[in-house]
């Protein structure tokens, strides 16, 4: 809401974006991209999109950067191959300029930034703001729209996370017995930059102390999403980050002891199942899919409006479970190149 601050942040973002594309060293580019995401999350907080900022901080700047770093680690950070792409780049520059100028042309038609009565702010969103409390008893409108009015979207979004995990697992996972027989992967092992595992007591102790608090905070974020910023996605990512921290500071063996490969697959599916299952229960109780109000028939001492509120909590738990476990699972796959032996 502070225009000057917004403008400064946006200029910095532009700088970071250019740098991220310009820097030759991949690790550098990835780190600059992390800074870009973090600045982006400040801009969103400026625009009063606190839930989005929260998600971006956890997902974009946090886990996304971890994924990128793991990939750069398990491949290569230098790209020495040189070929003149000048003509392609110039051609694409013209294409992009045409699209961009068309977009700039439309900017004149757009309502001013921050206009509360612009069409985008009037029709649906004003209904949500004015009726969320009456319809669902949830003050955080973002949660009520996310989990109830547009609950079907969110179920599919959880599904997307599930798909991403299953897809990455299916693409990258290699069984140990097979790897040892495979000649090429042995050569490949030599190509991967070798690094010494530093067995640091400080890191271990620090993460040991941090992890319980991270998880406690994450549970708060999940459970308190009705009243404060946060919800299943944010909480789930923080929970996932705590597991990733465990895997980074110790080793895979320790973290896999807590949450083995089999359990990861089962829990990822279980999360989506909780969400879809609540929807199916609604079907059996005679309502439409995801019509939580009919749940009042089986939940004790709730009217149909409170039933929506309770069901949203159940749904958020499902989301958190899937997101937590899949973020952890994706990290395991990406950082060990699918071998599940050692990570960053």
């Amino acid at each position: 809401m502070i225009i000057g601050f917004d403008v400064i942040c946006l200029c910095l973002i532009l700088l970071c974006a250019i740098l991220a594309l310009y820097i030759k060293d991949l690790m550098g580019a990835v780190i600059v991209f992390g800074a870009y995401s973090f600045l982006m999350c400040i801009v969103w907080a400026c625009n009063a999109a606190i839930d989005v900022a929260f998600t971006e901080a956890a997902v974009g700047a946090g886990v996304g950067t971890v994924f990128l770093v793991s990939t750069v680690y398990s491949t290569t950070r230098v790209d020495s191959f040189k070929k003149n792409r000048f003509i392609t780049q110039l051609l694409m520059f013209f294409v992009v300029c045409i699209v961009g100028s068309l977009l700039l042309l439309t900017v004149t038609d757009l309502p001013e930034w921050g206009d509360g009565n612009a069409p985008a702010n009037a029709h649906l969103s004003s209904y949500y703001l004015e009726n969320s409390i009456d319809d669902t008893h949830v003050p955080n409108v973002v949660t009520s729209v996310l989990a109830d009015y547009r609950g079907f979207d969110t179920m599919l979004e959880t599904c997307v996370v599930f798909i991403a995990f299953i897809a990455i697992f299916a693409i990258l996972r290699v069984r140990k017995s097979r790897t040892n027989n495979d000649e090429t992967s042995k050569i490949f092992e030599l190509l991967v930059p070798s690094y010494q595992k530093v067995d640091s007591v400080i890191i271990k102790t620090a993460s040991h102390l941090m992890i319980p608090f991270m998880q406690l905070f994450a549970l708060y974020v999940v459970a308190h999403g009705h009243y404060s910023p946060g919800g299943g996605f944010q909480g789930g990512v923080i929970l996932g980050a705590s597991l990733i921290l465990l895997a980074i500071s110790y080793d895979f063996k320790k973290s896999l002891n807590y949450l083995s490969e089999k359990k990861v697959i089962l829990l990822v599916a279980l999360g989506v199942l909780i969400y879809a299952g609540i929807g199916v229960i609604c079907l059996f109780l005679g309502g439409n899919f995801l019509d939580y109000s009919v749940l009042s028939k089986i939940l004790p001492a709730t009217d149909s409006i409170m039933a929506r509120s309770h069901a949203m909590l159940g749904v958020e738990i499902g989301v958190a479970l899937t997101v937590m476990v899949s973020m952890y699972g994706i990290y395991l796959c990406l950082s060990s190149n699918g071998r599940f032996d050692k990570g960053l």
Partner: protein
Amino acid sequence: MDYILNHFNYIIVVIIMMLGLWGMLSLSNLVKKLISMAIFQTGIILFYISMGAKKGSSIPIIKQAYDDHHHPIHQTINHIDYANPLTQILMLTAIVVGVATLGLGLALTQRVYSEHKSLNEDEILESLS
């Protein structure tokens, strides 16, 4: 000047998106392509969030008053006081979809690297032909 300031977000949106699009189409390194993809996506997210901002509004959590029995008191809510929740929800979805795509892209990148020993598109194409 006033006009530019009032539409500043949209102008930055266009520049960021075009930067990302250019990167995706013309950079040769696969990781760089994925970074450009993420930049392109954040550009669109910024577009949505900018359209949902309202001057002088608060975050979209309704200030609820309760009576002595913890029952909410009915109150009229003016939507101008709160930022647009709809665009925020859409973008929560878009961010999560974005990171899912990024993860999948990175998994493919690792497989490409173990197959061709390179992250450079030109080098890979050269080794294939």
